[in-house]
C-alpha cells in the first residue's frame, strides 16, 4: 500500500492508494450526498449522488467507485455538480410514487433528507406514477415498490452480510424491481431468514416493519459495523453497545 498525493477542492492532501475517493472526501469532513453507498457493504455506484469533477476526465465520476490516484485534481462542489445532483434527484422522485406525507419513513428518510439538503424544491419532469404493488406477505416485513429507488443495499446486505441472497433485481431500466427468490411473494421465500437486515439498511420507506404508519419507521445501521468489526477483526465492542442494551432492558 503506497501513499498518493492529490488535490481535493484546491487543497493538497495525501491518501492511501487503495482508498476510494469517497472515503478520502469523507475523511476530510467534506459533505457529499450518497444513497446507495453504505459503510460495510460493497460499492455499487448506482445512485450518482456522489458525482465529482476530476480534472482531465470528460465525464463526472462517482466518488464511491473511483480509486484515488497520484496527482488527481478533484472538485466536490460546483454549479455543474449541483445541477446534476438535483436533476438526478428529480428523476428519482419522478420515476415512482414518493409521497412523503403518507410514507412510513417521513422525517427519517435518506432520500427526503438528501433532496432537502440539495435544495430540490420541485420536480420539472412528469411524474410517471406507475401502479406498483406492495408485498406484505411476509410475517414481519413489507416491501413497497413505489418507494424503492433501486439502491440495492437490501440485495447487498442479504448477500454479503446475512449470506442468504434472498433479494435480487429483476428486469432492466424502468422495469427493474427488487424481488425475493425467484420473483415470488416474500412470505413464500425459502431462503429468507427473516433477519430484517434489508429493512434496516433501506434508505426509504420501501422496506418497513409491518403495521408501521406514517413517519413511524426509524432505521438503525449500527448493527452493520458491529457485525463487520466482529467478523473481520474479532472485536465485539460491548462497551459501545451498553447504553443501547440498557435502554432496551428498561423498556422491557
Amino acid at each position: 500500500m503506497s501513499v498518493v498525493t492529490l488535490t481535493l477542492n484546491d487543497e493538497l492532501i495525501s491518501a492511501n492508494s487503495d482508498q476510494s475517493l469517497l472515503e478520502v472526501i469523507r475523511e476530510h469532513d467534506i459533505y457529499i450526498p450518497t444513497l446507495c453507498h453504505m459503510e460495510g457493504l460493497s460499492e455499487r455506484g448506482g445512485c450518482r449522488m456522489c458525482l465529482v469533477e476530476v480534472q482531465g476526465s470528460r465525464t463526472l465520476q462517482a466518488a464511491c467507485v473511483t480509486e484515488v490516484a497520484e496527482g488527481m485534481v478533484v472538485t466536490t462542489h460546483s454549479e455543474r455538480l449541483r445541477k446534476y445532483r438535483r436533476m438526478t434527484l428529480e428523476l428519482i422522485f419522478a420515476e415512482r410514487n414518493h409521497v412523503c406525507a403518507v410514507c412510513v419513513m417521513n422525517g427519517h428518510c435518506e432520500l427526503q433528507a438528501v433532496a432537502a439538503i440539495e435544495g430540490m424544491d420541485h420536480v420539472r419532469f412528469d411524474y410517471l406514477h406507475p401502479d406498483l404493488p406492495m408485498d406484505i406477505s411476509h410475517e414481519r416485513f413489507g416491501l413497497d415498490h413505489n418507494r424503492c429507488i433501486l439502491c440495492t443495499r437490501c440485495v447487498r446486505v442479504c448477500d454479503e452480510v446475512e449470506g442468504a441472497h434472498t433479494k435480487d433485481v429483476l428486469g432492466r431500466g424502468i422495469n427493474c424491481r427488487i424481488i425475493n427468490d425467484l420473483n415470488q411473494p416474500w412470505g413464500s421465500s425459502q431462503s429468507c431468514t427473516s433477519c430484517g437486515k434489508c429493512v434496516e439498511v433501506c434508505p426509504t420507506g420501501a422496506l418497513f416493519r409491518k403495521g408501521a404508519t406514517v413517519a413511524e419507521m426509524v432505521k438503525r445501521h449500527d448493527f452493520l459495523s458491529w457485525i463487520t468489526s466482529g467478523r473481520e477483526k474479532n472485536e465485539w465492542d460491548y462497551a459501545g453497545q451498553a447504553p443501547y442494551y440498557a435502554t432496551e432492558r428498561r423498556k422491557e
Partner: protein
Amino acid sequence: MTKTITIDPVTRIEGHAKISLYLDDSGHVNDARFHVTEFRGFEKFCEGRSFSEMPGITARVCGICPVSHLMASAKAGDAILGVRIPPTAKKLRQLMNWGQIVQSHALSFFHLSAPDLLLGMESDPVTRNIMGLISKYPDIARNGIRLRQFGQDVIRILGGRSVHPAWTVPGGVRDPLAAEDRDQIKRALPEAFDIVELALDLLKDAFDDNTAEIESYGNFPSLFMGLVTPEGGLEHYDGLLRVMDSEGRTVQEDLPPERFREIIGEAVEPWSYLKFPYYKPYGYEDYKGMYRVGPLARLNVCDFAGTPLADRELRQFRRLGEHGKPVTGSFHYHYARLIEILFALEKIEEVLADPDLTSDHVRSNADVNQMVGVGVSEAPRGTLFHEYHVNEDGILQKVNLIIATGQNNMAMNRTVKQIAQTYVNGGGLSEGILNRIEHGIRVFDPCLSCSTHAVGQMPLHIQLIGPNGHLVDERIRD
C-alpha cells in the same frame, strides 16, 4: 322567462361548491341544487395499499377533521385485526376525538358563522368575515380562536401535531400520554369552559334577531341518525346507530354500526360529485329516505347527554322542538354544536382524572384475522363510516368511505331550496339574499374536502342564465 342563478363558489365553508337556483317565468324559485364540484378519488387510489397505512392516508381527506378519519380508519383496522384495543388506548382516542369536536365546532361557530350572526346576514360582504368580526368584536373573535386552539392543542399534545397526526393505528395508538402533558391540558380547561358559556349566551341573544331565519333555514321534517351509548346517551367515538323520525319515533332501534349497510343506501346524481346516502327502508325517491346527521341529529336521537352542564343545556334545547318532538330547524345546528363543545369539555375533564390514562400499554398486536373491517365514529359533522375489504395479507381490495357531509346532502339541497323560496320572490336579487342561501349551507358546516378558506374578502361568482343558455347578467366579487 326561466333563469338560472349560480352561486360559485360558496364561501366560508370547508371545500368547494356552487349553488344553482332555477327560476320560473315569474321569477320564483322552482328548484335549487347544491353542487359539490371537486373530485378526490380516495376510495380508488387507496386500493392496493396496506390497511395499516389507512389512518395516515385518510386523515388527508380533510385538514379540519383529520382526527375523525383517524378514528374511523383505526377502528376499521381494529376490526380487521380482530382485536380489542387496550382500555387506555380507547380513552386516549376518545380524548383526541373530543378535542377535535371542540376545535371544529369552535371554527364553525366563531370563524365561519359568527360573522353572519353578529354582523348581520345582509351586512357589507367586505367586512362580513372573521376579519370584520375581529375589528368589531375583538374579544369574541379572540375567544373563538382561543377555544379552537384548546382543541387543537389536545390533538397536538397527543399526536405530535394538530393537522394530520398519524397517531391512531390499527390496534390502538402510537404513543402513551405523559403525566405532564395531561396536566397541561387540564390547566387550559377552565378558560375553555368560560368561552363556551359566553358563546351560548351570544347565540341565544341572536335567536331574537333571527326568528325568520330560524323558521326558514332548513326547517323541515326528516329522519335523524347518530350514535348513542348502549344506555342511550350522547356518543362520539363508539356505540350503536339510532335513527329517529321528526315525530320522535325511533324507527331504527340501536343497530351495531358494522351492519350499517342494512339501513344506508347510496345514490348518485350526475350534477354533483357528492353521493346521496339515504335511509334504505324508506327509499331514495321523493326525499323519503332523507336523514340528517351531525350535532342536531345527535342531540335529537340521544336520550340524554351524560354530563351535568350539557344535560342542562339539552333540556333547554329540547324545548325548541314542538311538543317535545325533535328539533327540525337546521339553524339550531349552531346551538347543538355549542352544547357538544360543552359536553366534550366535560368529558375531557372526566377522562383526565382517570389514573389509567397515562398507562404505557396502548397498542394491541395481531395479524390480519378478518377480511372486512368497518369503523364508525361521530365526526363533528356527523356519522363517519370507513369500510375496508382486504386480502389475506392486508392489501386493500375495496374501500368505501361514507362521509358525514354526504349524508346531509339531501337535507342541504332541501335547505337551499327553502331559503331561496322564502327570500327570492320574484323581486331583485341582492348579495345579502345570496349570502342567506350560503348560510343555509354553513349551518351544516359541510366539510367538502381538505381545504380551508383564506380569510379576507370572499370571492363570489353569480350568473343569471337565460333559457337559451346565454348569459343574461353576471356579477363577480373577487
